[in-house]
């Protein structure tokens, strides 16, 4: 009697184990198929974006020439058309560039050309550039480096991309006259850069979506600034590619601070 009961128990365990193994096989197979699809997606995305970038760049440049050189002879309505063409082509160009970055990163092709770099100089350059753009909203962008002058082994172009993205977001999601501060902290092994705004803040439910490509949050630019939904995903990959990490503190109605670290040495 006991032996029969034992046998039944063992058989039931076998049945469950078999079903588990079948499900696991299906899961791994599906994941492998998804990985292949993702590769195809990245390849198509990369090719499409690459082919779009040159004509879009030409549209943007010619619209800029028209605005500058023929702007005075255009009617106000036509001048507005040209400005709209220029602004929209700039946005689409940025989106295409982001798509190319994302497809390269997802395909494991994030290439970092690192060199010892004066981080404060790089921060100053980015703060200055974004400060000019922020004057449109009467927002002051400042740098507090605390007198430190760390040399960091980094890819200057990529970290500038990170800074432009974070400062650009801080400006886009802040109301007029709210300052944006960039702060540098240094300890023996890492540097920490903080970009602080006094904007709308980000609801807690949106935070997990922020660093995922193609995800949209409920927060919008205060003056209709458009977002590709890709910038922070790229930023995270660049920071992590340098061996750093990125996170944020945010409170709705108070503002947000994005932090990222880079290793020293």
């Amino acid at each position: 009697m006991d032996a029969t009961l034992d046998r039944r128990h063992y058989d039931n365990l076998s049945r469950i184990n078999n079903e588990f193994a079948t499900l696991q096989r299906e899961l791994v197979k599906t994941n492998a198929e998804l990985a292949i699809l993702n590769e195809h997606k990245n390849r198509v995305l990369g090719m499409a974006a690459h082919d779009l970038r040159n004509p879009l760049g030409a549209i943007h440049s010619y619209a800029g020439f028209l605005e500058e050189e023929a702007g005075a002879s255009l009617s106000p309505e036509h001048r507005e058309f040209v400005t709209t063409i220029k602004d929209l082509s700039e946005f689409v160009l940025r989106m295409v560039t982001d798509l190319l970055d994302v497809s390269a990163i997802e395909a494991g092709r994030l290439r970092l050309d690192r060199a010892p770099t004066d981080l404060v100089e790089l921060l100053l350059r980015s703060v200055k550039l974004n400060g000019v753009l922020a004057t449109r909203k009467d927002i002051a962008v400042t740098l507090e480096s605390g007198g430190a002058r760390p040399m960091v082994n980094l890819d200057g172009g990529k970290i500038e991309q990170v800074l432009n993205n974070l400062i650009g977001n801080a400006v886009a999601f802040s109301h007029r006259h709210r300052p944006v501060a960039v702060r540098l902290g240094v300890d023996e092994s890492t540097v920490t850069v903080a970009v602080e705004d006094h904007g709308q803040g980000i609801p807690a439910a949106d935070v997990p979506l922020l660093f995922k490509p193609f995800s949209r949050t409920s927060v919008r630019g205060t003056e209709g600034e458009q977002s590709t939904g890709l910038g922070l995903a790229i930023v995270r990959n660049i920071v992590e590619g340098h061996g750093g990490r990125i996170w944020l503190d945010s409170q709705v109605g108070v503002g947000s601070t994005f932090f990222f670290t880079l290793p020293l040495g």
Partner: protein
Amino acid sequence: MMLSNCVPGSSHSYLAGDALHGQLAQLYLTALMQGDRPAAGRAVHGALERGVSVPELYRYVFEPAQYEVGRLWETREINVAQEHYCTAATQMIMSELYPHIFTSQKSGRTLVSTCVSGDLHEIGLRMVTDLFEMAGWNTFYLGANTPADAVVETLVGRHADVLAISATIAHHQKQVVALIDAVRASAAARHVKILVGGYLFRANPELGHTIGADGVAVNAHDAMALADQLLA
């Protein structure tokens, strides 16, 4: 559907130290007999790192080890708990190799495989299905609890070329017949070639053809050669 010609009730061990990867197979089974699944897993992963291919691990380690487990159980040298433990452990270690299995270039052919309902001896068919996958087939293993109409639905939905059915005991014959009849009754699935295998058909090789299968396979290589032949 068995992987090779296993002789029921054999008094000889299926593990020979001088066979290809024979010592590895002995080491593997010894670990399992001692209830040491991690050690068995380490032996397999170590071999993989040394360049032993996954099909070789299936053919020269898992297969003879499973036959040996069956032999030891039949000769009452191990009890049912040990037999179930070894099978479950092998299934788990096989599943650790899945990332190596689902990466091969696809041939465009599709296999659906299933055991008849209630058959617990499905590890052989699972191995056969994995070997088809590694040979470039797109495979869908349905296990032993899929009703006949769902199998037919899968054949149609996955555009299957071949259905492999495994059965162990005579009691399962009726279910195999019912499944074959269900496939043949479906206008959308009746073109699918049907292979049968497993202990039931090895014991009676004519049975498969009698009940309407297109081929009877005695091992994985046989199954793949038959499938290619039927689709040529």
